[in-house]
């Protein structure tokens, strides 16, 4: 048990963060190179003003027609994403590990707040899952990989919650938690989760084309 713990909480953390940041860099560079080779127009169309304008609309809840049409989906998607990014960064248990190894620390939320927000994330994942199973048009567009990705995202939250509450088998669960967190980080650049990296570009490009070329709104 100690060997496994030392391994997943030491070298594997390095590996996952290197894959995460290295992967983001790699994906960005290869996209830029590809766009230059295949479609130089992209660079000419890209407009900071129209791009940012579109991104701004899309990151504001109900800032677009799509968001307005699906109020429940919109609310869930926004709270889900805010909690998803907020919790791991401001969780005391995570920060104290940074403090122990690097002597750095920052503001943290209480364990009770973290617990509540974790439930919100898990509930959102269940919502996304049910939505994919129940709505015919969404189901039609869903492949196995969508479920796998949803599982990868939900796993650190379920296992972290389990470990925190010291439910049976929490030692193993703690190790699975760390592993699942690492898998999620490593998966971000190379799966559909890369929408985190590409969102500003796809949205920015759409905004530029619609704004500067077609003189229309894309929200």
């Amino acid at each position, binding site marked *: 048990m100690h060997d496994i713990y*030392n391994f997943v909480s030491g070298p594997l953390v390095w590996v996952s963060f290197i894959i995460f940041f290295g992967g983001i860099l790699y994906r960005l560079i290869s996209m830029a190179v590809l766009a230059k080779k295949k479609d130089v127009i992209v660079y000419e169309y890209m407009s900071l003003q129209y791009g940012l304008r579109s991104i701004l609309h899309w990151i504001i809840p109900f800032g677009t027609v799509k968001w307005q049409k699906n109020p429940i989906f919109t609310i869930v998607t926004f709270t889900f994403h805010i909690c998803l990014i907020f919790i791991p960064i401001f969780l005391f248990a995570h920060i104290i590990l940074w403090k122990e190894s690097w002597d750095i620390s920052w503001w943290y939320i209480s*364990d009770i707040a973290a617990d509540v927000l974790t439930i919100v994330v898990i509930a959102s994942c269940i919502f996304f899952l049910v939505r994919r199973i129940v709505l015919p048009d969404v189901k039609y567009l869903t492949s196995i990989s969508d479920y796998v990705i949803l599982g990868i995202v939900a796993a650190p939250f379920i296992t972290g919650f389990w470990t925190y509450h010291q439910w049976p088998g929490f030692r193993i669960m*703690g190790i699975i938690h760390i592993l699942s967190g690492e898998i999620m980080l490593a998966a971000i650049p190379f799966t559909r989760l890369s929408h985190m990296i590409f969102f500003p570009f796809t949205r920015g490009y759409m905004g530029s084309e619609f704004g500067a070329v077609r003189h229309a709104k894309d929200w």
Partner: protein
Amino acid sequence: MEKRTVMVYIVITLLVFSFAVISGFSQEDVSTIQDSAFKEKMRPPVRFLHDEHNETALIEECNTCHHVYEEGEKAEDESSEDMECSECHALDDGKNPMSLVKIYHVRCKRCHQEKKAGPVMCGECHVK
């Protein structure tokens, strides 16, 4: 009274007595680390059977934990068991617990990781 009845009484009394002594001892021995600097606790207290722990873990020097520093160097033959850790390792700005929690965790957990024995996960020390 018959001899046998007396024997039975004595045996029972001895049993009850030794049970009381054993349970009394173990009750006294159960203790937790309660640094007075932590005002509102976020986690359950850490169980730490001081003497028993240091015996089974084969720690001979008190100053492995209760250390004293002189001019930036650990003083080899001095110790500070009459002080709480927080008397030297204060809370940051008098309220942020990060640094104090860190020195406890570094001291306890790092040895367990090196020796591959003893608790390393939050819930193993902060037992509900």
